[in-house]
């Protein structure tokens, strides 16, 4: 149990890893805070999580990225010790989460997706209770609460019942609960769900400020969020880890084609009817209403064929109303890996 606010830090883990780890991961094993080895969960005949192997190092932000139902939440529940895996192991600071749980969970902060709080308690009571359960005593409890309150700017909400708070403040209280023992590892399940753009921006700023100090594992189905926040992304599909790497390296897995959407307006025959003449491009056309046409173009749009396309439209006297680059390379990688059947896992970085 901690006393006077001094919570024990995690012991350095042994430098060992399961077979199949990429070279880059092996280079940072001494800083590994969380490690999942062969993590599998079956619910009857349904395999929800299928042999997940990954690690999170001190100071890095790692994103679980996957479509709804991919197994992200199930995986996180196993990582925090709420669900017992059908196979595999979770180590937190070198200790087994299920065997050594009470000792090592002091360095874990977890927030489920819907931010469940005890609605009949005030913010101060709730955080005080959670601090005590993390092992704080006496004045150290109050100091821990004050620190978390200051970090999440909850000073004006201390006397309010958590059930009466807005979604944004509930999220802040949930995060304050995570941070109350200044843990080494934060596990956040879809932390931006239900927040407005300002709140999302603020939360992202906070998480970025923790980079280098804490290990953060967050789940999201929003690609842009993963790109913006994460040092490394784990793409999960149908319970399996299909790719792992930095956003840049994962983008490199795409076929380098950029799907472009062009909305054009004009009169006369369809100006892009001869599009096939422009090498390497194929297009599908959708009516956008009135004189507008929406073209969805697949293929490499380099400088040369962009000029050709522009010249072609100008010669037909059609104007370009919108030009969207559409799917980015990482989006294409994500779509390819999560929509296609494939057994090959891609480990990058």
């Amino acid at each position, binding site marked *: 149990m901690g006393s006077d606010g001094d919570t024990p830090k995690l012991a350095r883990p042994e430098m060992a890893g399961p077979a199949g780890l990429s070279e880059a991961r092996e280079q940072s094993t001494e800083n590994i805070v969380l490690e999942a080895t062969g993590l599998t969960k079956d619910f009857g005949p349904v395999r929800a999580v299928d042999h997940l192997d990954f690690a999170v190092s001190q100071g890095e932000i790692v994103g679980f990225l996957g479509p709804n139902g991919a197994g992200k939440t199930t995986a996180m529940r196993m990582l925090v010790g*709420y669900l*017992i895996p059908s196979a595999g192991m979770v180590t937190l600071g070198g200790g087994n989460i299920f065997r050594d749980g009470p000792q090592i969970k002091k360095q874990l902060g*977890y927030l489920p997706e819907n931010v469940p709080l005890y609605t*009949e*308690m005030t913010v101060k009571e709730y955080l005080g209770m959670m601090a*005590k*359960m993390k092992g704080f005593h006496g004045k150290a409890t109050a100091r821990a609460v004050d620190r978390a309150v200051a970090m999440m700017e909850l000073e004006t909400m201390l006397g309010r019942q958590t059930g009466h708070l807005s979604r944004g403040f509930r999220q802040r209280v949930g995060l304050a609960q995570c941070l109350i023992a200044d843990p080494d590892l934060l596990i956040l399940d879809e932390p931006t769900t239900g927040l407005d753009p300002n709140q999302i921006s603020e939360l992202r700023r906070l998480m970025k400020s923790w980079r280098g100090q804490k290990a953060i594992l967050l789940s999201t189905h929003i690609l842009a969020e993963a790109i913006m926040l994460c040092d490394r992304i784990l793409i999960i599909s149908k319970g399996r880890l299909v790719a792992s790497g930095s956003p840049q390296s994962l983008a490199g897995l795409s076929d380098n084609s950029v799907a472009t959407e062009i909305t054009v307006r004009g009169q006369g025959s369809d100006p892009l009817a001869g599009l096939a003449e422009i090498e390497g491009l194929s297009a599908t056309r959708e009516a956008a209403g009135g004189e507008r046409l929406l073209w969805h173009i697949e293929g490499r749009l380099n400088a040369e064929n962009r000029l050709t396309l522009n010249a072609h439209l100008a010669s037909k006297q059609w104007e370009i109303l919108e030009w969207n680059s559409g799917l980015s390379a990482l989006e294409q990688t994500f779509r390819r890996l999560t929509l296609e059947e494939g057994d090959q896992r891609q480990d990058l970085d």
Partner: protein
Amino acid sequence: MRNVLVLADKEFKGLMRMPLGYVVLSVYALVSGMVLMTMINIFDHQLARVTQQASQVTSTKVIIDVQVVVVTPYLLNVAALLIFIIPFITMRVFAEEKRSRSLEILVSYPLRVWEIVAGKFLGIFGFFGLMLSISAVHLVILQFISAPHWGPIIGGFGGLILLGMTLIVIGLFVSSLTQGQVEAAVLTLGLFMIMVMAGEVAGGRSSLVQRGLSLISPLYHFQDFGRGVLAVQNLCYFISASLLFFALTMRGVDLLKWRG
């Protein structure tokens, strides 16, 4: 142990701040008060009748035992009332935590399963103690009406405490298995009724099976306490049943970790 007390405090205060807590206390106070008034009225009528009869025989001293006429029926009725009320104070303990996913946060903390179960039990038991304090006030009122023997009354209260303890633990067990509060309340009440009715169906019949069935009933084991009699087998029943269902509740919470 500290975690147990922290959780108990949260559970107790939670009930006290909810409409459910006030409703339960009010209903308990009202119904048990009405039971007491009824018993006192019966006592008065019997006393008046016997006094009138005795006045015709000058040498007869009138004695109506308040223990027999008021205290024991009051305690037995309160025990029956607990069968119906306790499911409503235990229904949300685990079912609500599972539904809201707050149990996930709790499990991610450095807590052991027995600490979670013990803390919740203690919190609900504390609320139950508040209910019993209402009955204590009721029985103190008797002091102004007659001269009750406090030994049997204290023994009866001890029985209520043991009965409440056992019923609460059974309620926690059912709550640990269910996903919804209403489901937990109905199943707990149903289980209580089956345990009580098994004893009632057995009644006073002599067959071995029927006698065995009567031993399941918590009310059957409370009856001696209600009369002010402390029987060891009844004490053993309540303690062992409580320990059994406490262990089963821990298993119920553990089962969540397997099936989600």
